[in-house]
């Protein structure tokens, strides 16, 4: 019974290039059942496609439903998730808002107006991800993809020194190995000057991560920059943006690391002509990250607010925080 169902599966549901699909359908091969018992040479001559293409098609079609075996029960996922330690942000309020910190295996978006401190938060995360486990860190490395040229090594130095001091004081940790030099060694910075560089960087990230398997955090600062300046064609921009989003989600889930993306703000006008600030890149993009945070100044300008506007598991809320040297 199951084979007859699989045999009546249309060939067009397989990821076969359109040119080959049209040749196959012209030759009358419309369902899996019609090709599954053929040899590559027979298929190649009947459908007038090359031998390699015929072999590829048959491989695809004959694959046992291996994908189905990749389901996991919720219980297994829960067990895995319990072992996942989030990356602390060194601000108690923000950590409480996010139930512990920036979560692993998920994409988090941080938006805010220019100058509110998105890059600061990203640099902070690059440092805290490297904290030893005794201090609540992950002892992991970080990848920083810089599109605006905002990576600031001297600020990084301040933050690392503060973090090291905090760990030494609170945990009495000797940690001779953990100093500024080792922190900077474990942050990999990619500078992307245009959209194509950004796209290629994200696409080859998986290869890079194979050789650097201690990476636990990927930061893109900022994703919006090139898309807002370089790309005129809106349809192409949307496709590229979502391709990047899909790849980031795939990396986050498969390799169990945290992906943080920063976004700029844009003005949206409602029916009364009133403008209000919303994260840029559009509503379609808004569905891609699992967690979305907006950073903003408090009207008194003494401290800032972090607001959780979208999350899959946490109630929305706001947390005040400060940036200290």
């Amino acid at each position, binding site marked *: 019974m199951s084979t007859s169902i699989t045999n009546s599966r249309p060939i067009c549901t397989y990821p076969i290039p359109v040119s080959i699909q049209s040749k196959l359908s012209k030759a009358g091969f419309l369902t899996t059942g019609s090709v599954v018992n053929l040899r590559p040479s027979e298929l190649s001559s009947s459908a007038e496609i090359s031998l390699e293409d015929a072999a590829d098609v048959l491989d695809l079609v004959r694959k046992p439903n291996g*994908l189905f075996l990749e389901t996991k029960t919720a219980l297994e996922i829960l067990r895995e998730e319990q072992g996942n330690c989030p990356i602390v942000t060194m601000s108690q309020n923000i950590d409480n808002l996010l139930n512990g910190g920036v979560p692993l295996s998920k994409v988090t978006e941080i938006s805010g107006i220019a100058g509110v401190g998105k890059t600061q938060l990203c640099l902070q995360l690059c440092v805290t991800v490297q904290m030893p486990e005794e201090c609540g860190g992950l002892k992991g490395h970080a990848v920083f993809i810089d599109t605006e040229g905002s990576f600031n090594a001297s600020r990084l130095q301040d933050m690392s020194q503060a973090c090291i001091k905090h760990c030494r004081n609170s945990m009495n940790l000797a940690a001779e190995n953990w100093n500024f030099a080792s922190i900077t060694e474990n942050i990999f910075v990619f500078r992307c000057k245009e959209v194509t560089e950004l796209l290629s960087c994200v696409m080859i990230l998986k290869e890079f991560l194979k050789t650097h398997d201690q990476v636990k955090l990927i930061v893109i600062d900022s994703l919006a920059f090139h898309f807002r300046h370089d790309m005129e064609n809106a349809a192409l921009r949307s496709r590229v943006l979502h391709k990047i989003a*899909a790849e980031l989600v795939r990396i986050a889930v498969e390799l169990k690391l945290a992906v943080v993306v920063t976004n700029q703000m844009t003005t949206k006008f409602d029916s009364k002509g009133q403008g209000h600030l919303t994260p840029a890149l559009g509503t379609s993009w808004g569905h891609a990250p699992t967690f979305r945070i907006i950073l903003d100044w408090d009207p008194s300008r003494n401290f800032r607010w972090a607001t959780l506007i979208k999350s899959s598991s946490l109630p929305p809320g706001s947390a005040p925080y400060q940036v200290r040297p």
Partner: protein
Amino acid sequence: MNLLSESISPLLTSDKLELLKAHKILTSLDFVQYNNDKIANLIGQNVSEIIKIKDQILAANNSKSLRADKLYEIILKRTTIIKSGIDMVDKMLDGGIPSGRLVEVFGEPGSGKTQLALQLTANTALKQQQTVCYLTTSDANAERILEIMHCLQEDADHLNGLERIHFCYVNDVYQLMEMLWAPGMREYKLVVIDSLATLFLPIRGDSFNDAISLLNKVASDLKRLAVVHQCVVLTVNHVSRGPAEGTASTPTPFLGRYWCSVPNLTLHSKHLSKDEFQLTVVKNIYSPDPGPKCSFRYFFRSRVDVKNEFKSIYPHI
């Protein structure tokens, strides 16, 4: 629709099949449509033999008719009603969603679509003890499901409920189709696809891929899944653009005009204020009342309590 071969009739020997192929008669559909006399001349058979072969093909491919009362009995036996566990929502849906329906929920980002999907999943797995398949494009939120289960019923067997939910990450449309055609799908009473729109975003507007025909195929596969396997298929969709200035109408869902006619039940989800969410029935082909809505809250508990409580109840996880 099969290729013509000797198995259909002993009269169709291989040289005759070659002759037919040369005239582009390759599948049984082509054969049945072609003129009887022309085929008879082509392969040197009597017209009556050709008619016999055609009848054979038609009989083999015919769908069997079923008496309506027998069909009704079958449906009664196999139907399950999927409930959400939130009273207001279930009341609005007249008790729940019966199996065999394709449901869509759409809304802006952060409007509670995934929450509804998780709520239905948790309730179905826990209270109705049915298996659920959750195909996700972004994340699999097991902790949230456990939280919902706790809020639904404190002292039930949550771990067993969790085992009945199967998560699967799908990254593109072809993976989704692979899952839909997998023979194991018949076991599930609820299949959730969160979200369908994300799968089509990278290929929309790209003439190379013809996203529209892919969407058609997915739509027909989803319908087939719901009707043949008698389960509920819930798809999550995005919005294409917000409502036009000043109008109170609902925004348009993302996947296009054709898709709007596919689901049996369409719900629009909206986030009203801090805790309040609103669900509006935009389309329901089984009900005469237009657009009932209801506002409600999803269950959330304080984060710190939840973590500690889970650690104490399930120390071995």
